[in-house]
């Protein structure tokens, strides 16, 4: 019981620390091309059991708010969380979202989305479509890929926010 409390305190401290670190990083390293790797224990534990972990810098704040507000009907599946965990993850996603993290890549994603649109998918954005317009439909359906949403099949560094051309490899 005591060790559990200690562990919880540790997790909380870790979360506060990483958030603080990221915010500080924003001021100093703003404008960098790639998405900075981010960590948050609840996000990592809850948002990667059904698919890869999508970097918060891939969608704007309004998208994350809408997505996190509808977890009980998440793309046809129930991904609901308890209120506290849901709030904690939402805060983290918002703080590092495409309109708040300061990287060039995020700025481009955010500006490719019309102001009145709130996409729930990264794959819906004009930025994504444009970057992948040379990949044919049959490639997306390969067994090792499955769909456009499975970034990590081709971008091995996707969960860390690394989409650099040097790390792209399309599996056969």
């Amino acid at each position, binding site marked *: 019981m005591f060790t559990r409390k200690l562990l919880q305190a540790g997790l909380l401290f870790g979360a506060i620390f990483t958030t603080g670190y990221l915010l500080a990083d924003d001021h100093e390293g703003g404008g960098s091309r790639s998405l900075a790797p981010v960590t948050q224990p609840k996000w990592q534990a809850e948002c990667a059991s059904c698919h890869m972990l999508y970097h918060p810098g891939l969608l704007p704040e309004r998208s994350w708010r809408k997505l996190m507000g509808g977890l009980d009907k998440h793309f046809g599946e*129930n*991904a*609901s969380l308890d209120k506290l965990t849901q709030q904690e993850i939402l805060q983290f996603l918002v703080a590092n979202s495409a309109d708040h993290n300061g990287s060039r890549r995020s700025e481009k994603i955010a500006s490719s989305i019309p102001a009145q649109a709130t996409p729930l998918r990264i794959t819906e954005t004009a930025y994504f479509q444009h970057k992948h317009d040379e990949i044919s439909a049959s490639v997306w359906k390969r067994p090792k890929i*499955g769909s456009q949403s*499975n970034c990590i099949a081709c971008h091995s560094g996707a969960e860390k926010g690394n989409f650099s051309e040097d790390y792209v490899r399309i599996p056969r």
Partner: protein
Amino acid sequence: MTKTFWLILLILSANAQAASPAEALQGYTAQAKQENPAYKAPSASKGDVFFHATHQLGNGTSVSCATCHTANPRQPGKTRANKEILPMAPSANTQRFTDAAKTEKWFRRNCQDVLERTCTAQEKSDFIAYLLSVK
């Protein structure tokens, strides 16, 4: 009335600390007996049927627990988004049913997705009994 309340609380708190599949099974069995005094003991064969039974959803698709977890619980399964799910049988994956909050969370989600309702404690207890029986 208050007696039942404390009993349920006791079961829930015992449940919340379950750290092994056997303890998880015990917790759900106790809860099942509370819900239905005629329930005697968990049944692995009923759990087997429950695990493989397909259900027709409102939108026309058929789904079962085995859709994602595969028909053989010693094998890894796959989510709809193409991510691997580690085996469900504790004999093939020692992490299974060692975190009561996690177990409850997935029962809540997956029962809603497959059965379009919550699962009873009896179904949960039979389900775990079946998975424990798979060697």
